[in-house]
């Protein structure tokens, strides 16, 4: 029962962030599943995707109704994104190396600071 209430609250909060910011559901759901809902680490990532997918479909539906979808950019970026996903999975397993993760984390913080001030 407590698990269900906790799950409902985490789901609602993630959905809100997904809708308002168009991203970021996973950054909350993955750790919440592991820490609060005791989902084993190897299942947390996949379970998170199964939750984020319906949230994203609902958010995207409302964005498109409000005219916030650039179809041309979406199509080109999605197609090359799928190719990038395959390439990454096949050839670039080393991408999870410590140094690269740190470089990306720092770039993210720098990008965030630029967006905050610019």
């Amino acid at each position, binding site marked *: 029962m407590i698990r269900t209430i906790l*799950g409902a609250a985490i*789901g*609602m*909060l993630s*959905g*809100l*962030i997904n*809708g*308002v910011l*168009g*991203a*970021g559901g996973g*950054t909350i*759901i993955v750790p919440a599943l592991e820490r609060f*809902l005791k989902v084993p680490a190897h*299942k947390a*990532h*996949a*379970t998170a*995707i*199964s*939750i*984020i*997918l*319906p*949230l994203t479909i*609902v*958010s995207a*539906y*409302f*964005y*498109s109704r409000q005219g*916030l*979808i*650039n179809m041309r*950019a*979406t199509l080109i*970026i*999605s197609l*090359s*994104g*799928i190719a*990038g*996903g395959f390439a*990454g999975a096949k050839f*670039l397993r080393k991408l*999870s190396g*410590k140094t690269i*993760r*740190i470089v*990306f984390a*720092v*770039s*993210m913080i720098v*990008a*965030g*600071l630029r*967006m*905050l001030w*610019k």
Partner: protein
Amino acid sequence: MEIILYLITGFVAGIISGMGIGGGVVLIPVLTLFLGFEQKIAQGVNLMYFIPTGAAALWVHYKNKCVETKIALVLAAFGVLGSAAGAYLAAGVSSLVLRKLFALLIIIVGTNELFAAAGAKE
């Protein structure tokens, strides 16, 4: 030219999504900072982008029995209420405000990832 930039952006975001960091925290800043997208439109691109890529990943994970369906149903059922409300909120808020909120999100995610990576083994 524009098409080439889109292709490169998507490809790089696709590779990075495989690292476990969500594609959006990379895709949205690139679209707004380098390609001049309005924040809301960048968010829209990211949402649409996740649908096919997320569905493909989910299919593989589901076949490998890595999805805890029972708890996922609870989160998703309440999550869609949140995302519908959130998407309505986003439409009513200016892109500037969303951009600042988004900036805070990626600073938090980046800091969290920095500590996680620094503590990880090489």
